[in-house]
């Protein structure tokens, strides 16, 4: 499959990337390309110019201290999987199960977050841990960042530069992957933080969302049993050839139990 024609430009700095974006009518930034390129091959996207920001040193770092882990937007999934094991094991586990090894060698956290695929894994971690998305313009709380299917609070030309994750007391992630694409049919990230319990669900609806009933139950008792009887209403969940809304609703409860169990082990 051949995408529509476009112009490829590799940016040497963030500033150059923004200039290259400003003077093309339908420009897009290219990070790892593991979602964008398949989309372009299907001719569902046709940017006039691709600005490759995957090699930018400014975006390539992972730092951890006692309170937070800060990950440059250009960090690839395999790097996150290897380097945050001690600080946030649930995040390392999540990164280690995105796609497959070849995808993890290319895909980046910034690209995944900016794309906000409804079935991507990282949005659940950001929302579950209460992360902050830093961009070329500002910092945005995860609660405000993911606004809809493939939609975020990012303005045109704004580039995600860093994700900052507060370190939780406990955290766990469980997903039921589509057996072909490995995207989440349903994925649940739970975290016990100093500000309370957070539960984020990906894959089940058009956009990642929090599950307040599960959060309340887990605040009372942080055990798998606490969420076993709580179902997300199937109304509003995705229904497609891979899974019905009712099945996804069921999966969310099962994944929530597993995520809590993983959090208690980790």
């Amino acid at each position, binding site marked *: *499959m*051949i*995408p*529509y*024609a*476009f*112009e*490829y430009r*590799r940016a040497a700095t963030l500033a150059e990337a923004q200039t290259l974006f400003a003077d093309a009518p339908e420009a897009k930034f*290219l990070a790892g*390309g*593991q979602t964008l*390129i*398949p989309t372009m*091959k299907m001719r569902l996207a046709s940017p006039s110019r*691709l600005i*490759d920001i*995957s090699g930018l040193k400014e975006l390539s770092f992972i730092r951890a201290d006692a309170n937070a882990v800060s990950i440059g937007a250009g960090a690839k999934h395999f790097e996150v999987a290897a380097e945050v094991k001690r600080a946030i094991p649930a995040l390392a586990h999540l990164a280690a199960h995105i*796609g*497959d*090894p*070849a*995808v993890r*060698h*290319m895909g980046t956290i910034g690209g995944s977050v900016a794309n906000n695929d409804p079935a991507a894994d990282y949005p659940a971690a950001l929302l579950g841990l209460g992360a902050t998305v830093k961009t070329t313009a500002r910092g945005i709380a995860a609660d405000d960042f993911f606004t809809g299917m493939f939609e975020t609070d990012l303005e045109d030309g704004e580039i995600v530069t860093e994700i900052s994750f507060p370190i939780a007391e406990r955290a766990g992630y469980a997903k039921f992957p589509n057996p*072909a*694409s*490995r995207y989440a049919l349903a994925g649940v990230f739970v975290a016990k933080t100093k500000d309370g319990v957070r539960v984020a669900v990906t894959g089940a609806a058009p956009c990642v969302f929090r599950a307040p009933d599960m959060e309340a139950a887990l605040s009372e008792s942080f055990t798998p049993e606490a969420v076993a009887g709580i179902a997300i209403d199937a109304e509003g969940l995705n229904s497609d050839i891979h899974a019905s809304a009712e099945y996804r609703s069921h999966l969310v409860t099962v994944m929530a139990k597993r995520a809590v169990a993983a959090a208690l082990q980790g």
Partner: protein
Amino acid sequence: MTAITMTVNGKSVSADVEDRTLLVYFLREHLRLTGTHIGCDTSQCGACVVHVNGRAVKSCTMFVGQANGAEVTTIEGLAKDGALHPVQEAFRENHGLQCGFCTPGMIMTAVDMIRRVPDLDRARIRAELEGNICRCTGYHNIVSAIEDAAKKARSAA
């Protein structure tokens, strides 16, 4: 059009190609290295796996510009001086293929995983093969071939 220069299997190559050229088409159609296969074309099957700067990637999901200046290794670059690479040899020994279509990608993935993962057991090999689809073998002999090659690589190290 962009002028591309990269090292493929140890040799420097240059070409003017359309920006929308995928790495796999550059390898197959410009360089005539047709060992790298196109299976699903939707980033799932892994028949197109090559190494870019030493890491396994899907060449159908990478534009040639992204590999500009890189070192690329394809299945054609593994055998040295007429002798099969140990992973190729293990696939032959263990009958790790039937029709052979997925084999180049399987072998490139296997070489990468053996290099990366110190203690490969059969379960881990199966997990690492997540992105490579074989429609004939049922994977059993592919797993055996990789296990065999990994053991030999460890005892040689």
